[in-house]
């Protein structure tokens, strides 16, 4: 991670007066498009919004925009990490967010690979079958947790070198040279 922090790109992003703020604003704007639309899809899977809209219409007409939003999220998110790579890599909230993102991805994968295959049977059913409902709820919970952990990356509460339990140092991936010897 140290080498990444020393790249020209990283230094430029870090030291520019506006670049970081602009990228961060794009990240927040795309949150509306991506999480906002993803939440609408999930709420439709729960049968709570657009009951008259078949699920296939949602996946055909709304999901592509969710993918656009996701692309912008990932692109701006990568730049944000690139601007502060070392600290972010050892940030417990960043690590939690990474794990939650994998879980959200798995949930989406399971839905599209298996659950969605029977969509013909519940395309217009409100409320939809339990498996569909569970996917929607799980997705909402996971994305809410991802927004929370993402917001918390900004804080240095558990940075390596702080006086904190060894467990937190382990989760943050702190190496012995980063840990304050007097804090143990």
């Amino acid at each position, binding site marked *: 991670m140290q080498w990444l922090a020393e790249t020209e790109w990283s230094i430029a992003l870090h030291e520019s007066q506006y670049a970081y703020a602009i990228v961060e604003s794009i990240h927040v704007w795309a949150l509306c498009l991506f999480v906002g639309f993803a939440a609408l899809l999930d709420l439709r899977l729960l049968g709570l919004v657009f009951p008259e809209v078949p699920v296939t219409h949602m996946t055909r007409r*709304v999901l592509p925009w969710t993918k656009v939003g996701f692309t912008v999220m990932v692109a701006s998110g990568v730049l944000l990490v690139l601007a502060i790579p070392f600290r972010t890599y050892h940030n417990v909230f960043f690590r939690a967010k990474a794990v939650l993102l994998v879980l959200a991805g798995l949930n989406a994968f399971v839905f599209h690979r298996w659950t969605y295959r029977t969509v013909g049977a519940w395309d217009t059913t409100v409320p939809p079958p339990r498996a569909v409902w569970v996917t929607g709820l799980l997705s909402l919970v996971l994305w809410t947790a991802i927004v929370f952990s993402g*917001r918390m990356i900004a804080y240095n509460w558990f940075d390596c070198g702080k006086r904190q339990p060894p467990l937190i140092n382990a989760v943050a991936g702190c190496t012995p040279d980063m840990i304050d010897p007097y804090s143990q």
Partner: protein
Amino acid sequence: MLLPLFERLEASAMGEAVRGSLWLFPVVEAFHLVGLAVIGGAILVVDFRLLGLGLRNHPVSRLARDMQPWVIASLALMVASGIPLFLSEAIKCYYSFAFWTKMTSLVFAVTFTFTLRRAVAGAPDGRFSPVWNRAVGLTSIALWSTVGWGGRWIGFSG
């Protein structure tokens, strides 16, 4: 003229509580962000439809009616979480250009959403020309985006 008021707001019990806590500001801020995602989705899906994108097979009036309670509920969450955030740093906000940009555009965005946009989006398909629909959709996106960017920028100011 407003500064004494903002000073009193900053000294309020809620302002003190948020300022004095390590966790409160970030947690309330995170709720503010979740509210942002919901209101963003609920507003954008109708604006997109007005622009001829997204759920084109469904009447815009129906979509707008479905989204109305979500817009109101998420707006309520935004205001409820925004107030403690504001109170904790009212004086900083007073001197922040981003804050005043946000509040001004918020007044315009809310007024626009509950008057003109409501009338156009709520009308049966075909009542207003596509040009009207597009203009309303674009204006709505522009106004709400200014609110969001202004809000994010409060954190970068001061």
